[in-house]
């Protein structure tokens, strides 16, 4: 188990290293000089040079890359070109919106999908299965940002249960903050729940065909008992994979959804920084998102091992 963990940890570090190189390279080849962008086209040459030096843009690419990476490891994400404030502080503020949103959506998605998938698998081919699967088929096809607009139209504009956008802030109390995240979380969660429910159902159906399920029935377990005691845990392996991937989708999907609801999260930060050519912010936020996804995948790998003893023995 320790060896397995170490091996996954090593591959996590390699992934992070390569990811940071790729992101740095993409930003490097971006056209446009941040210094001249910030000072405008009429800036004097020596003012530009001074600003470049201040931003560290006069150093070689290798130096800048190393400075960026070592800074990040120490929690220093550099200084925003636009606002001259530490990027780390900007990210921290926004993270308090984006991360709760992603987790809220993930929780909703799981809470909807697991029972729906299990229900459909248990009633395979019957009316219950067909209607759940029909609903998921439509759920998969709905773009989440469109769904978000519909939620705003119905629940904010017509029913006035929620505000149409904006974030109440955590200082107004957790409940108000959660309320302003509720519509965005539903918009994010439902299409993902549709996918997850389908995966859950097909994973369970695959397991139901296994020989050991027949052994379980021959022991005297009822269909439902066999499904619960022997089916679920075996079906969790493919489901975990999808859960890990979904987290990545929810973080990314959140960026779009934040646009719909005018939420001050990482997504808006990225868009604002892109339009202001504040590339250091773009670079760091992207890296942070990739970091989150890679760490979640690492956690999923560990969860595999917890579920499946065969993985613990191997490697």
């Amino acid at each position, binding site marked *: 188990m320790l060896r397995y963990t170490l091996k996954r940890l090593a591959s996590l570090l390699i992934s992070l290293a390569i990811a940071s190189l790729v992101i740095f390279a993409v930003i490097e080849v971006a056209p446009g000089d941040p210094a001249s962008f910030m000072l405008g086209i009429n800036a004097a040459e020596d003012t530009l040079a001074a600003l470049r030096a201040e931003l560290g843009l006069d150093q070689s690419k290798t130096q800048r890359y190393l400075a960026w990476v070592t800074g990040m490891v120490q929690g220093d994400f550099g200084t925003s070109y636009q606002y001259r404030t530490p990027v780390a502080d900007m990210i921290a503020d926004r993270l308090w919106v984006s991360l709760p949103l992603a987790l809220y959506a993930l929780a909703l998605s799981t809470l909807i999908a697991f029972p729906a998938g299990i229900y459909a698998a248990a009633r395979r081919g019957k009316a219950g299965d067909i209607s759940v699967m029909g609903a998921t088929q439509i759920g998969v096809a709905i773009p989440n940002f469109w769904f978000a607009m519909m939620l705003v*139209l119905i629940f904010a504009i017509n029913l006035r249960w929620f505000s149409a956008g904006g974030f109440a802030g955590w200082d107004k109390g957790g409940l108000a903050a959660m309320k302003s995240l509720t519509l965005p979380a539903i918009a994010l969660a439902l299409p993902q729940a549709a996918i997850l429910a389908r995966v859950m159902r097909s994973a369970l159906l695959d397991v139901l065909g296994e020989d050991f399920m027949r052994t379980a029935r021959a022991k005297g377990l009822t269909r439902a008992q066999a499904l619960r005691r022997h089916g679920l845990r075996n079906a969790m392996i493919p489901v975990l994979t999808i859960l890990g991937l979904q987290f990545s989708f929810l973080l990314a999907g959140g960026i779009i959804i934040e646009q719909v609801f005018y939420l001050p999260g990482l997504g808006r930060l990225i*868009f604002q920084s892109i339009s202001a050519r504040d590339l250091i912010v773009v670079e760091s936020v992207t890296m942070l998102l*990739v970091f989150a996804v890679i760490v979640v995948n690492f956690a999923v790998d560990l969860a595999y091992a917890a579920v499946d003893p065969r993985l613990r023995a191997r490697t």
Partner: protein
Amino acid sequence: MTRALILGGALSALVVVAALVSFVWTPFEHTAMDIPAKLQTPNGTHWFGTDHFGRDMFSMIMVGARTSIAVAVVAVGIGVGLGVPLGLWAAARQGGWVDEVIMRGNDLIFAFPSLVIAILITAIFGAGAVNAIIAIGIFNIPVFARVTRGGALPLWAREFILAARVAGKGAARISVEHILPNIANLLMVQATIQFSLGILAEAALSYVGLGAQPPTPSWGRMLADAQTLVSIAPHMALVPGFAIILTVLGLNLLGDGLRDALDPRLRVARV
């Protein structure tokens, strides 16, 4: 023929026909503004109503289908063109360093939140359909590589492949002659799924202004236009929304129907 196959095929065909017909005929010029006729709800003249510039939304949906299809087709093409050979190569060298490098590379691309990177690419290299295609296409490569390898590996253990090796055939020839035809079904089903995901991704990128640029019409941008007007003209959001949903639904049903019709035991990665 299952119901899913018929319904999915019909919906998909409808979208393709609309896109093709739009080259020769649309009820109105899709860019023609008619301010006095703005924000009309669907009626006899403007079947899907008009937008805030009085443009005919039925015409815009027809022309917008071209964008969606073009982006998705090319993005799937990139995925198939690069992913399938890589997957075949990895399977032929199972356990070797080629396999290891290809699959690690795949994992790495999977680790990137795809939409974030697509946003990054289009933002840095400029918004537009071409960059959107590339951004979406890159993430199709590992999907097809993984599905191809997954389908090919069990085949390599089959005795007819051993027999072909005993007949002196090399890995490349066996891959093309024996492996590829036997995973064609799998790839076709996966392609319909990626196609529908491509349409969704294109809509999302256009919605945030990073996809196809005006005057090229796009369903995603129609939704962006609708956002501030949704309370007074809900049809502006409903029409392109339903266009996307029905197209994606049609493609997904087509994929499911194909899978059931071709081989009910096919395992397809559906993410």
